[in-house]
């Protein structure tokens, strides 16, 4: 009897640890999501929200070219940012993990993530000033005679991408660095013993083994970038409307929550599809 009771107690104990997180998720993710999904089927009629339970807001998205264009812009900007961030973060992470002496790595990492310590909004406005016609970059390029007229960098898609990449390189550096540090040094030595060049070792051994770190960082970059409103709003100059801006436009004055909810759900569908693709590729579903 005593054994049975203990087993019963042991069975419940893990739940005691899980329940707070579960309640939190239900209260602050599942419930709002259900509400948002329900509201996306309503309609804004005049000043009222009408529970019409129709897909009219979704139909609106597919019927309006500028809505579809916003989704295309979001995907394009996110893809460019993710690829550029990986290309810049990988060498940085590799240098930190392999070339910086062990005792300096912590300090180097802190330096690498310093930009995280500044407010996101302040950082975006700072970039606006750096990229402006009379900003640091244009003044430097004009000063050394590389250009005669200032380049139009601010208030453009280029500015948005620069602002994003500055932030996400740090994030990706951390995930790739953590992955590189976990790799036993013997793998590279074994490859060298078998006659592989340093390049071949990197391509056939190191890179494949660090793909999980790259993919985790890339997915985080994708999710945070595609849902970000601040950076495109401050740096993009509204030259290319992205989905979060389109969603905010629905709410700002007219409080059209049904359309905004439908657009948010569609954005979540895209993120979910990307997650499934990543998970399949990395075979995470087996883990």
């Amino acid at each position, binding site marked *: 009897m005593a054994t049975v009771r203990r087993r019963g107690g042991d069975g419940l104990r893990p739940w005691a640890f899980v329940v707070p997180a579960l309640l939190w998720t239900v209260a602050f993710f599942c419930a709002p999501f259900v509400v948002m999904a329900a509201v996306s089927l309503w309609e804004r009629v005049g000043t009222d929200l009408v529970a019409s339970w129709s897909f009219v807001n979704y139909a609106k998205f597919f019927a309006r070219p*500028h809505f579809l264009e916003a989704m295309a812009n979001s995907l394009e900007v996110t893809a460019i940012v993710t690829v550029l961030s990986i290309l810049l973060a990988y060498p940085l992470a590799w240098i930190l993990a392999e070339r910086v002496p062990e005792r300096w790595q912590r300090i180097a990492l802190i330096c690498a993530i310093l930009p995280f310590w500044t407010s996101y909004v302040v950082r975006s406005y700072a970039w606006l000033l750096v990229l402006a016609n009379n900003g640091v970059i244009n003044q430097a390029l004009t000063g050394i005679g590389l250009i005669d007229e200032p380049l139009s960098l601010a208030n453009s898609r280029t500015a948005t991408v620069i602002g994003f990449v500055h932030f996400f390189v740090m994030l990706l550096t951390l995930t790739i660095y953590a992955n590189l540090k976990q790799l036993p040094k013997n793998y590279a030595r074994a490859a060298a013993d078998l006659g592989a060049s340093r390049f071949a070792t990197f391509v056939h051994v190191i890179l494949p083994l660090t793909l999980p770190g790259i993919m985790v960082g890339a997915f985080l970059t994708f999710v945070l970038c595609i849902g970000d409103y601040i950076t495109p709003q401050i740096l993009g100059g509204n030259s290319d409307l992205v989905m979060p801006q389109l969603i905010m436009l629905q*709410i700002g004055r007219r*409080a059209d929550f049904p359309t905004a909810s439908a657009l948010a759900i569609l954005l979540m569908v895209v993120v979910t599809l990307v997650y499934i693709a990543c998970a399949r590729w990395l075979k995470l579903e087996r883990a």
Partner: protein
Amino acid sequence: MMTTTMRKSLLAIGTSAIALVAAGPALAAGELNALVWCDHTDPELIRPFEEAHDVRVNLKEYEGTGTALSLVEQSRPGDWDVFVIDGIDVPRAIDAGILGELPEGTAPDTIFPEVALDELQVRDGKRYAVTEKFGYNTVSFNKADVDPAAMEDMTALWKDDTYKGQIAVYDYYLPVIGMVAMGLGKQTADLTEDDLPEIRETLFKLKDNAALVGEVVSSQTAIATGEVDILVGGGEWVTAGLSAENPDLDWILPEQGGVRWSQSIGVFADSERKDLAVEFVKYILSPEAQAKLATSSCYWAMPANAAAGDALTDQQKQALRWDDQPDYLKNAQLYPSPDAELDAKMQDLWAEFLQH
């Protein structure tokens, strides 16, 4: 096993947490909760009222009537006392039962008659709001780089590419659509769906010349730093506050006129401190407070109460173009106040404009 003491403590913490969450913005009788635009958050404006009435004024700043109405919907009745709202949205707030009746005599007799807007603020003989500040969505420019005489014709902004890359457009669809409509010789009050194709075509030409379309801070930064030389949709609210620092920043009402905006102040229908809230409204409408509101650190604009002129300095009046007001008021139209259906179409048009 949880002891009785622990259980009591947890219960106390839980009860306190629930009480705190349920309490909303108001916690003490000596407080007033106001939902306002950013110009009211200037301590110079609020402090004299707080000291005179020994109360604390809690200010919640918002942008966009939609956001404000959502905040109100999510609050408990009685949470809010004072509401500052876009002048054209006052009927919307009255319809929703948000604004309460103001006692007679709340509105001073010295309000500029053109901005009194009784047709929006008085219903069935009852006043629900009073205009407190107004200004223009028109053309701001840097006169060091742009000829002020050229800015007198609004069509110069889109008829050719003279100013290509020098223009920023303020990112709010109603005033800019109103401005373009006026540039095309239309009346903002008479706009219908049939006018939208012509407005769309002109907006697209304007976008071709624009370097950016930005909200308040971005567009103000752009003209202040020289990124652009012209701000469409700007006005005294963008450049007047900067004029002491950079006298080249100026604004003008073109010959086609400009769009007039206004903000109104009222009291929430379910306020539990109505008398104090009305006192606050009266204070904001007093000449001294009006002068402070007009030159608030967030943005400058004309005080609705003409009596505030005595409390403004000559430099402030010049920056606000005080002496031009009789002509400007005659030549300005209230920005479009479309019904919900046309509003949705205008917003859609704006999304197209941004995407162009």
